[in-house]
């Protein structure tokens, strides 16, 4: 039996990947470029890369020339001629100025960038010179291994959850919220939530909704009329809390946990539409404002 952390693929050495970028002629053009491209050419597994690169060139007359480049897609994913056609159709007008295929052919260039996010600041500072990147300290945080006592505790809670699932006699996912500091289960799936006919009644959303309801009731009871305080707590409901579920959460639930600022999640089984083990790894997206740790319990 062991616990496997779900982390982003990364490398100790810089691994390059080749991409197409468009040499943009103005900040305004760059702004509309981002809007168009982010929808049609998502970065998905390259979300550590920034869309725009800015370089400053010193010209002979001592004036600065600023160059802007916008990232489009991996050269392995799309052909240059298809890109030219796409841009001709969707991006050929700027303040009344029309571009032709020559314009795009000249301005679409090949660039290299780091395939993986940097795991530490030192690497980040070097790798980003290739193409600008996002960095989060969380990658280091994710390296801290669980100790033996923690691992024991985690397996015993998961066993309780398995028993609960048998008790409830349901094939649906069940879960609980655990406070690791107080060593206390604060909430768990109940019979009512299993019979709820809401099409999005996934166990994690239910746990979040239930804990919010409990919190509102607590606030009303205590009648401490400090509204501002309540407002600030709202998004941190599951801060420092752990969530245990039998099955890996879907993308929706994985993101609900980001919104709720959960600390860690533990699960046993991965799922087809999971948001943690698959391509998206919602808990580790560099540009999101919160990251949590995800672990899979392996019984062997």
């Amino acid at each position, binding site marked *: 039996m062991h616990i496997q952390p779900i982390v982003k693929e990364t490398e100790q050495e810089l691994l390059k990947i080749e991409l197409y970028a468009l040499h943009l002629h103005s900040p305004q053009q760059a702004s509309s470029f981002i809007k168009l491209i982010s929808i049609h050419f998502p970065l998905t597994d390259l979300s550590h890369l920034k869309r725009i690169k800015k370089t400053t060139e010193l010209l002979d007359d001592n004036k600065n020339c600023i160059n802007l480049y916008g990232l489009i897609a991996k050269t392995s994913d799309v052909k240059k001629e298809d890109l030219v056609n796409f841009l001709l159709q969707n991006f050929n007008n700027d303040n009344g100025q029309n571009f032709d295929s020559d314009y795009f052919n000249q301005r679409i260039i090949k660039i290299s960038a780091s395939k993986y996010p940097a795991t530490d600041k030192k690497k980040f500072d070097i790798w980003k010179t290739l193409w600008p990147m996002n960095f989060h300290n969380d990658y280091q945080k994710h390296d801290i291994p669980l100790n033996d006592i923690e691992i024991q505790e985690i397996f015993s809670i998961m066993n309780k959850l398995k028993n609960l699932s048998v008790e409830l006699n349901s094939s649906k996912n069940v879960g609980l919220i655990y406070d690791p500091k107080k060593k206390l289960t604060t909430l768990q799936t109940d019979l009512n939530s299993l019979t709820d006919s809401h099409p999005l009644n996934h166990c994690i959303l239910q746990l979040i909704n239930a804990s919010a309801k409990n919190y509102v009731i607590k606030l009303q009871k205590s009648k401490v009329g400090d509204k501002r305080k309540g407002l600030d707590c709202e998004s941190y409901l599951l801060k420092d809390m752990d969530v245990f579920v039998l099955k890996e959460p879907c993308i929706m639930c994985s993101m609900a946990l980001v*919104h709720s600022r959960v600390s860690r999640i533990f699960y046993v089984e991965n799922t087809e539409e999971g948001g943690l083990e698959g391509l998206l790894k919602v808990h580790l997206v560099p540009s999101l404002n919160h990251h949590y740790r995800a672990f899979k319990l392996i019984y062997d």
Partner: protein
Amino acid sequence: MKEALKMAEEALNLGEVPVGAVFVNNLSKEIVGRGRNNTNSLKNATRHAEFEAIDEILKKQVAASEVEWKLLTVFVTVEPCVMCASALRQLGLSMVYFGCNNERFGGCGSVLSVHNCPSKFKELPCEGNYFKDEAILLLRKFYIKENEHAPNPTKKTNRLLKIEDLGNLKSVI
């Protein structure tokens, strides 16, 4: 989209992040559900406009299975976040029209592309830039209001203000 903006305005007046959504039946062209952000009053960070509208639609039905999601189109003032984009795709909505991009949480291209990533669920067609400026203006009003209410403008509100401006290039670089 104007009706969605009205919902966003209602949220603004109630001290919620001003995002509004309406669901329209493709055949009757009638609005079947409305929602606005409701995270602060419910102390629940997942109560986004889309979820509020979905729950309103479900409340009107006797059984959840009666709702034909594939016949509904969503109009929302801000690009759905990763969570909402996944929810709308799982339900099988026919189309999403949105106002401004959501650079912090967007699930239809800005942060992740939940609408068309590999999945067993049908792709969720999305189109942005409808009444974009109006949607951004409401968000700006909200963050300015937040700043005024705070006894001394905190780091957090400053950060929100700056991020809210991400549509322009400087903060992206």
